[in-house]
């Protein structure tokens, strides 16, 4: 029992990796990127399963459409969450490509001087993140209004 505890790494694992509290804003973007990525994968799997019913004939397809229609507003809320996930994952993914493939927004290597502000997390990176949040929020709100308008609520 004691040996088992000793071998275990302290506060490690999936939940710890997704817990950004106390850390920098980039770590929050990381968590959101992971979560939206999982949402998109689940959506794509469900979407492929939905499309697969076309091959089973018109009756199966109509039944699938009826099932989705029976979800009512929950279908629209689900679509809205998927739209938000796609917007955020795409925009933040673009920022990460700039960082990782082109080495942009990182600043140049510098001689560290107290209080040691890392250039990779400094002004340019923050501007990119807040710009992404702003654009994604605006488009997501617009998507929500569009869905509500489609339902005839507004």
């Amino acid at each position: 029992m004691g040996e088992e505890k000793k071998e275990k790494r302290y506060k490690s694992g999936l939940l710890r990796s997704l817990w950004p509290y106390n850390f920098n804003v980039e770590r929050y973007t990381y968590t959101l990127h992971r979560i939206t990525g999982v949402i998109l994968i689940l959506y794509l799997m469900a979407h492929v399963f939905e499309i697969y019913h076309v091959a089973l004939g018109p009756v199966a397809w109509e039944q699938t459409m009826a099932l989705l229609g029976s979800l009512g507003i929950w279908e629209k809320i689900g679509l809205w969450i998927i739209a938000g996930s796609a917007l955020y994952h795409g925009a933040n993914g673009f920022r990460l490509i700039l960082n990782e493939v082109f080495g942009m927004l990182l600043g140049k290597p510098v001689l560290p001087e107290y209080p040691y502000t890392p250039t990779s997390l400094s002004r340019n990176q923050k501007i990119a993140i807040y710009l992404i949040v702003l654009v994604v929020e605006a488009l997501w709100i617009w998507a929500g209004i569009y869905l509500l308008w489609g339902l005839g609520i507004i």
Partner: protein
Amino acid sequence: MKVRIRRFDGQKEWWQDYEVDAKPSDTVLDVLNRIREKQDHTLAFRQSCQMGSCGSCGMVINGLPALACQTRIGELKTESIRLEPLYNYKVIKDLVVDLNDFVNKHRSVKPWMIRKNPEELEEAPTEFKVTPEQNLTFVQFDYCIMCGICLAACPTVAIDPLFLGPQALGQAYRYIADPRDEGFEERIDILDDSHGVWRCHFAGACSYVCPKGVDPAKAIQYLKKDILKYRLLHKKRASTKPAELVQKAPPPNAPKPPPFDFKVEGGV
């Protein structure tokens, strides 16, 4: 002031509270020393230089990995302090963690100068000059004191214990960026691996907590760029395993090695 410490004695874990007199100018390490001197001599923690140079006193202070000797009580702005061992490490006792994996990862990226002609390291044909501009491209990453704090902050290390981690990758880049080093091709299979640079998703937590301003996240992104450029230009595929780790099986009809002779030549 109330100090709450995560204890571990090899069998069980528990939180223990202490009441300590502390001034805002005291460091967390001062407080820990006071507890050990006056209240509880069984409390275990590492320390050495007490000035942010040795990297021994890394621990999690109020939820954020930091050096105890560089964190002043006044900076924390809290009524109590919560101290825990570094996240993502095996705990040996109380605030002392096992750094073996960490050191092995560091060693695995060959953090030393590599020359194509190794004899040059013993007898250099000429002085290897580095201009101040060239020095600036890697000196930041040379400031690493191997405290291991960056691995405690890294979300990828939390889910993948085999991930090389920001410290080792940062040190790999420190040597790759050095104009005197010629070991990029020797290191690339180690770095361009499923547990190498591509496991980093740039959460930046390593750079955020680094007590010496090393910015390992930046070094890792530069490494990714360099590796991509190398693969595109040289059209070389990454092997699944570094060549030196691939052990070739002996042929089936190979003679068996002779039994080991324990006799010491010339006697003891």
